[in-house]
């Protein structure tokens, strides 16, 4: 009975009610959307590297090493000598090891020297392997494999020549060494998309005619001569390691961290990612806080609408009282109306979120490598909605109690 009354009463003020509901719906959609992006970003972030047990580099900090070797941002870490690399590679606990050499670039993209094992061992998003979208893995000294973003941004296709530059913001290009694109990787949503992959030897080959950061004038060793040279690198930037058994991870990590010949650092990628996220996470919490405030604002807006409706509904309330409604019924009616608005708003917000996700999911994945799964609402989201309805009831109590008091005092004597 009271429910029918509430619905009819809301229907009578359709426009104001619709606006209030829209405000709640938008705020709820924003809040849930931020939550979705937050968890999605965290998952995408944590999925950047998987299947690697240890990352080894020069002693720095775990976050710095991770940022530079995996995300290719931040300050360069020192190099690791080739001797130490071989030493570590020969440890019995090591199942596989992939060296990484950074420091050169192609336009705005990093060039990474590594071995072909990288393509077999690098895993992202829970054990997904790298896939070629076109072409094959490099097998010649001057072959390169480029990430999806590199190909898309620079419009490269398999077979195109490519010039690798010295340093990052490069004005001196290694124009004398003709590289060729042998393959293009499928989109991964990881920093690999923005990387030009060459062999470790190629990194050395680029620098054959270079000394002290400048090209030796008039010298251009023909590619065939370079091929015949001993191009074993003297140093690498970092190495990815897989251990035989998880049980040996900590022992190997300690052995590397205490390696007496060179100050090295071995980090657990999962733990370093967590550390990094703990730093980034503050912004995430702030964002969540702001969107929660938006929900609160919408609810206060609803309270204001109810307040202003009280005046125009005085007569209505008086009639209810005249027909035998108790003051508590008036209070219940107002709270019920508010809860109805909040519930409709929250449901509509959820619907808006899913519509938004459907539209934006491919866009976000393509542009930012951010994958937001479309799945049934989580318990947390359901509780958020329940919370919004509860909070709606709570804020409506303020005008409802006022109406309750008024209906006691001047219920029957309306002064116009």
């Amino acid at each position, binding site marked *: 009975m009271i429910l029918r009354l509430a619905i009819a009463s809301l229907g009578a003020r359709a426009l104001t009610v619709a606006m209030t509901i829209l405000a709640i719906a938008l705020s709820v959609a924003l809040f849930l959307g931020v939550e979705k992006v937050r968890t999605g970003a965290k998952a995408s972030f944590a999925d950047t590297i998987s299947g690697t*047990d240890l990352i080894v580099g020069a002693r720095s900090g775990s976050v710095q090493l991770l940022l530079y070797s995996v995300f290719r941002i931040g300050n360069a870490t020192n190099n690791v000598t080739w001797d130490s690399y071989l030493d570590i590679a020969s440890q019995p606990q090591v199942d596989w090891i992939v060296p990484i050499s950074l420091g050169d670039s192609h336009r705005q993209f990093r060039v990474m020297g590594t071995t072909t094992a990288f393509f077999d061992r690098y895993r992202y998003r829970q054990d997904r392997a790298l896939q070629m979208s076109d072409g094959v893995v490099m097998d010649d000294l001057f072959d390169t494999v480029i990430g999806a973003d590199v190909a898309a941004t620079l419009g490269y296709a398999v077979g195109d020549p490519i010039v690798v530059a010295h340093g990052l913001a490069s004005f001196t290009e290694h124009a004398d060494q003709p590289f060729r694109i042998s393959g293009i990787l499928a989109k991964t949503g990881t920093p690999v998309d923005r990387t030009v992959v060459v062999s470790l030897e190629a990194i050395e080959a680029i620098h054959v005619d270079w000394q002290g950061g400048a090209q030796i004038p008039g010298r251009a060793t023909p590619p065939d001569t370079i091929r015949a040279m001993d191009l074993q690198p003297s140093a690498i930037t970092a190495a990815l390691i897989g251990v035989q058994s*998880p049980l040996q991870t900590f022992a190997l990590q300690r052995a590397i961290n205490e390696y007496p010949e060179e100050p090295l650092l071995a980090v657990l990628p999962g733990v370093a990612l967590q550390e990094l996220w703990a730093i980034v996470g503050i912004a995430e919490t702030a964002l969540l806080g702001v969107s929660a405030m938006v929900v609160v604002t919408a609810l206060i807006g609803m309270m204001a609408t109810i307040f202003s409706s009280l005046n125009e509904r005085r007569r209505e309330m008086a009639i209810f009282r005249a027909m035998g409604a108790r003051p508590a019924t008036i209070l219940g009616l107002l709270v019920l109306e508010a809860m109805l608005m909040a519930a409709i708003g929250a449901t509509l917000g959820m619907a808006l979120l899913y519509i938004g996700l459907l539209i934006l999911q491919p866009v976000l994945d393509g542009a930012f490598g951010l994958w937001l799964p479309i799945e049934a609402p989580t318990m947390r989201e359901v509780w958020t909605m329940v919370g919004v309805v509860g909070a709606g009831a709570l804020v409506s109590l303020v005008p409802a109690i006022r109406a309750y008091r008024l209906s006691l005092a001047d219920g029957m004597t309306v002064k116009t």
Partner: protein
Amino acid sequence: MKPTIPLLLAIAAGPAFAQETRQMDAHEHGVGSLNIAVDGSTLAMEFHAPGADIVGFEYVAETDADRASVEEAVVTLGQPLDLFVVPTAAGCTVTQAAAELEVEGAHDDEEMHGEDDHGHAEEGHSDEDDDAAASHTEFHAEYQLDCTDPSALTEMTFPYFETFENARELEVQIVTGSGAQAFEVMRDTPSLDLSGLF
């Protein structure tokens, strides 16, 4: 010839000392670390904690009482399942346990010997002939456990904090086949939710 021999020795000794690596681990009082690695039904655990957390002092045990508390601590640390409790459903049994006290940074303080006299009295519990004047001590333990049902390892509680009242925090790192994760276990909330890890 005679005077040259000490000279030669000095020359030979010089580079030998220069090549000695000097590095020390992090040492934070109140904070211990526990590394757990899981492979199939085997659990390997490594535990480190500053001496201050476990016995309340870091000098080399001098009195009988000190030595007794160190020994007692080593015995206690040899019982991992009393300190780090896992659900009985997992059916874990200890197959190996070893605990010891390490004195850190003591062996390369050669020049310190002349200045300090008081450090020589110890016939230390530790295996090194150390001058502990400027050193930290650390308890170190390694365990191997066998669990009949590792999937039942849904949580871990830490009576460790009740046993050792100077310990404030334990940094736990867990490595499984699917990756590594880190947790901080504080004295106020001495438990860890491991559901979904195994």
